[in-house]
């Protein structure tokens, strides 16, 4: 069982990803925008952080850059969800330190498989 933070502003997607990962037995924290996500990251330790790219206040990309500047959070795994599926976007995220990039729409089963891969 892993401690996972999901930062997603879309309630329907929060429900889809949340249900899927909780079914797998993971403990899930939810943040509705970038700022909330950053606050939670500073307060708790997460094995995995899932960031939506397009979020109010701070985008997923901006949160990613912040995390990479916090030394003790360097080992934390980060996944980016984005509706922008272009190759350039993926390269940009990976260059900033993202461990995985999942384009929307995605398969919940596939998501679970990637999460398990990352946690193992």
């Amino acid at each position: 069982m892993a401690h996972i933070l999901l930062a997603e502003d879309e309630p329907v997607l929060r429900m889809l990803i949340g249900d899927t990962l909780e079914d797998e037995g993971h403990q899930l924290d939810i943040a509705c925008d970038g700022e909330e996500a950053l606050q939670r990251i500073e307060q708790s330790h997460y094995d995995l952080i899932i960031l939506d790219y397009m979020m109010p206040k701070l985008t997923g990309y901006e949160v990613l850059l912040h995390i990479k500047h916090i030394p003790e959070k360097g080992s934390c795994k980060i996944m980016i969800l984005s509706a922008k599926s272009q190759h350039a976007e993926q390269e940009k995220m990976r260059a900033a330190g993202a461990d995985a990039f999942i384009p929307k729409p995605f398969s919940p089963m596939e998501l679970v498989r990637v999460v398990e891969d990352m946690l193992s």
Partner: protein
Amino acid sequence: MSEIRQILKKSITRRFTAMMLTLLSLLVAGAVIVLYMNDSSFSQYQTTLKASMEKRVLVEQIVEHTNQIFFRARGYYAFLNPNEYNQLFVEKQKLEQAIAAYKKLPLTSQEQVVVSSIESFQSNFFTNIFPLASGYAKAGDYEALRAFSSSGVNQEVNNLMSYAANYKKQNEQLLLQENRTLFANVISQSQWFVLYIVVVLIFSIWVTRRTTRDIGAPLERLSVEADRFSRGELPHFQDLHRVDEIGNLARSLDYLIRQIQVKEETLMAQNEELQAQQDELMMQQEELMMQQEELQEALAKMEDNERYLQKRNRLIQSLANTLDKQELLQSIIRNIVEVMDADKGVIVLMNTDQDVSSFGVSELGVDQFLRGLDHGPLVRVQETREPYVLVRESTDAERGYQEAYSQTYELYLPVLHADQELVACIVVSRIGRSLSPQEQQMAMGLSEQISLSLDKLAMHEETEKQRQITQDMLDTIQEGVQLVDNNGVTVQVNRTFRELLQFDQCPAGQPLELSGYFRHMDGLICDHQELVAFVKTALSEDGTGGFATHLIELTHPHVRYIQLYAEHLFRDQKKWGTLLVYRDITKEYEIDQMKSEFVSTVSHELRTPLASVLGFAELLLNKELKPERQQRYMTAIYQEAKRLTALINDFLDLQRMESGRQSYEEEQFAIDQLINWPGSIHRPGNRARPSR
């Protein structure tokens, strides 16, 4: 003695000093002797006189005191007065003092006898006579007293009285004798003094004579001999044998004269030689003077030529430097008037405008000249193509204050084109001074230069006209055009270029170097290095192929997007420049950007509900789910599908709006309802980012 003589013989000075010392010694010795004699005579006289006077006084005192003693004694006898008695003894004491003083003086034997008798009388009186006589008186025995005084006791006193009287007489006699003796001595001394003066005079005359003979005469002889030498005669010196200064002087003079005689002969020879040389030099000098005159003439000619060349050069230089027509004409006429040494002049172009410029001519004069252009001497010049000189009487104005008759020479000078066509005519006037054929020839030479420069001006004007047409054409183009030569210097730009890249404030006419262009652009764009690289590559390549374009993002004063491309220009198959074309594509660029952003947004907006629909469907299909969970998922799928449908309808509406095919349904509703609608993007507190 002979040694002293030898020493004196060697020096006039010593001799003269010795003589003067001797004379002085004689003078001093004589004066001392005379003074001594005088002094001894007077002192002897004074001593004798003093002793005689003292004796006489003492003798008178002795007689007086003796008389007083007798007087006091007789008074005492008669009255027995004690006072008389005391006075008698006072007198006795005074008498003794006088006798003692008298005895101290040098006395003759007779005087010594008299003194002894007085002493003995005095002693006898006070020892014998007075006690006896006073005893008689005290006894009152006056008879005995009378008898006693008649007994001759007074004889001594009487003797003394007579002696005193005699002594006085003798004394006076003695004084008289002493005076005589003194007078005789004084006379004798005066005689000796006269003799002494005579001796001194004789000695002085001797000294003078000796000095004259010893010094004056030899010097005069020397002077006479020197005079003789100066007159050219042969001198003969007599004093050569002398050993003193005169001898030295004579020998030196003799030696000098001999030396002068010897040198004179040498100098005479040299003088003759120099005279010959001087004659030769005089001849050479005359020759040089002639050469110098010739050279001066040549120099004057050269200076004239130089002045002419300077003026001609100035004319040519002014022709070369000026491309403004009026300025050129003004320069031509000013300089040609100066070069030709004329007073005034006019130049007129044979074009349709008849451009004219003058120097020293009034506007009225120029107008008159232009009016008579087709009828005056110019017609002749047009026909002959040769310069023509018109000689006329000077006008009153030209003569000024000169009353004399004067002529004015006017040169009509044609300026011919290469094809002998008359392009201009110059008229220059000289008041009172003629124009030589050489000057006319020179004027024709200048006319050729002027023709060339007028050709140049015409070409320049034509080029300028063409350039202006090209510039006008360029300025009408929407794109900015920059023509850069192979050295990177911007040759020409159009108006759009200046406005677009804000070069309109740069000074026109100054060549714009590549570095200056880059510096200017540095402040205007954000990707300066890329522009530098593109422009450098475009300028350095010389191929004929086209180049990739470069997008410039102008940041100042507001954002604009410029597409830049380059085209090479060739002349004779050789690249001579590059045309940089700047096209303002701000509008197209923004539309492109908006389109791509739109597509990206649409993609994102479609993908989010699609992800939900697909995700939940997959879970429903692959998982065993509780019925309420299935119900929740089905609802979500349904709502997201509806959202997707609404989105697609919105896109289609937008498409129709763009194409103008949108139909509108008009209905009235409250605007606040629209604002408060949950899905409104303008809802207060909604997220600022519109794109989802």
